[in-house]
């Protein structure tokens, strides 16, 4: 049933390799034996970021949500690097983008998207990274792809967890 040689360049394998590499790095930085709760929290945050990052970068086809996620992660890392100049640039860029997307959103709602589920659409937009700038049609597309990637992510991470806690 299962393929003997899975597709080496599938989303799953790409994500797996990237994520494991990131995990190794994180574990190398924080040896677990000396973890305090605070450090555990820190590690958790880093691992979460690493998971999202690996997923966003494993997506081969340039999807809007992956692009938005990459942008978010990059801006966050820039912020953490505390470079004031970079921060200014990113925030101004972000503001420009947000204005544009708000404008687009207005346009889309006025041009008769009116199929009657505005509230849920907004919720979905919040969930899917980069969903604010998409009309409903593309949003549904992105959601489908995002769901697929999320399920891959959960599968891989769960297998890792099971591996280490038999």
């Amino acid at each position, binding site marked *: *049933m299962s393929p003997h040689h899975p597709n080496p360049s599938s989303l799953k394998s790409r994500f*797996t390799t990237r994520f494991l590499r990131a*995990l190794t790095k994180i574990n190398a930085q924080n040896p677990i034996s000396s973890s305090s*709760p605070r450090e555990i929290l820190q590690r958790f945050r880093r691992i979460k970021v690493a998971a999202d990052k690996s997923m966003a970068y494993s997506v081969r086809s340039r999807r809007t949500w992956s692009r938005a996620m990459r942008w978010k992660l990059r801006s966050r890392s820039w912020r953490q690097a505390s470079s004031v100049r970079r921060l200014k640039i990113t925030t101004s860029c972000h503001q420009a983008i947000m204005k544009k997307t708000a404008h687009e959103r207005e346009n889309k709602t006025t041009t008769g998207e009116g199929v*009657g589920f505005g509230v849920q659409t907004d919720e979905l937009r919040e969930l899917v990274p980069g969903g604010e700038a998409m009309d409903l*049609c593309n949003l549904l597309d992105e959601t489908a792809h995002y769901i697929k990637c999320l399920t891959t992510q959960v599968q891989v991470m769960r297998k*890792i967890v099971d591996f280490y806690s*038999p």
Partner: protein
Amino acid sequence: MATGDNDDVGFKDRHESLMNCPSSQINTNPVSDKVNGMAMSSISMYNKPSNASDSFFGSGWDPIVSLSQSESLVGSSMVSHSEFANSHYPLLMENQGISSTSHFSQYQSDPSFVELVPKLPGFGSGNLSEMVGPFSLPQCGQIANSKCPQNYALNTEVGNERTCTNSTQSRDEHQLSDEGVVGASPNGKRRKRVPESNSPLRSYQNADEEPQKDPSGESSDVPKEQDEKKQKTEQITGVNSRGKQVAKQAKDSSQTGEAPKENYIHVRARRGQATNSHSLAERVRREKISERMRLLQELVPGCNKITGKAVMLDEIINYVQSLQQQVEFLSMKLATVNPELNIDLERVLSKDILHSRGGSAGILGFGPGLNSSHPFPPGIFPGTISGVPSTNPQFPPLPQTVLDNELQSLLQMGFDSNSAMDSLGPNAGRLKSEL
């Protein structure tokens, strides 16, 4: 209409075949000859018992390639259908009341029928029945769609007789059409709609004017057809509304006769709908959206029975939220449980992950709207509890106990990322103090 008359004569002689292929009259337009040939040859394959049809349907099968481009032919074919039905149907119905049903069931079970399906280009999987439908069953919708204004007068007359044959063909298509339009090629738009209109026609008109044939008798054969036709019809949506329009109004063929064409996608105006470009674009958009919703319905587990965009969107939102929470939970678990990960382990682990299966059990077990913590603890608890007595050399006992306790408390609190974080902190602190 000379060719049409000839066909009529020919059909009279072979009324048997006519019952099964009422589309044989499709010769009103010269363009429709190809379609006629296609329909006839297609139907001839079904009607093996009717030998007469074979000679008549020698028009050849090549025109089938042009079917995808011959939208107009469908309409024109409908015209001839109506004519035919007018003249012959009542007679035939009386004589062939039973044979037609048997014929229908026969060609349903005919393997050639099934083989025929993939040959039709430009249809997707739902092609053959769509093709056969319009040809074999004169319908109001088809007539309306046709470009021949002469259809107009025939619509009302045909309505009565049409329902009988409509019922068999439309019933199975209607029942098979649970998928809805999958946004197939716009060229097929008209054809897709046509067979769909059969079912509403049947439901509306059968009650009104009961033809000589008993539709219930036919419908008994329909289930057989349904099973085999299931693979063919996939794009039948929203018919009922349009069917209503079709059933009620036997007019405004001129309204849909013109096909306003967009720049990129060739969209045909359906019967009874506005034909200006705005509403057409709207309709295309809406169909795209419904197609995407259908894809999402397949992705989200347990959403097969849900109909309605609003409910579906709710489910999608819940599912995405739960997936994100699962990722967060798993990353937290990794943060607490993960031992050193050297390169060899990494390789082994990656191979294990990629080759093994069944990892999605937890995800699949997640019912829509269910709290994500519900499927999780049963899966996680065995891992954490067993971790306590296990002699994992990589873990010093103290942190392990702490970690397991933390995880257990985390699970008991239900999975909420915020609360989990909160509980992790104070619990860990409490545990440490106790220890």
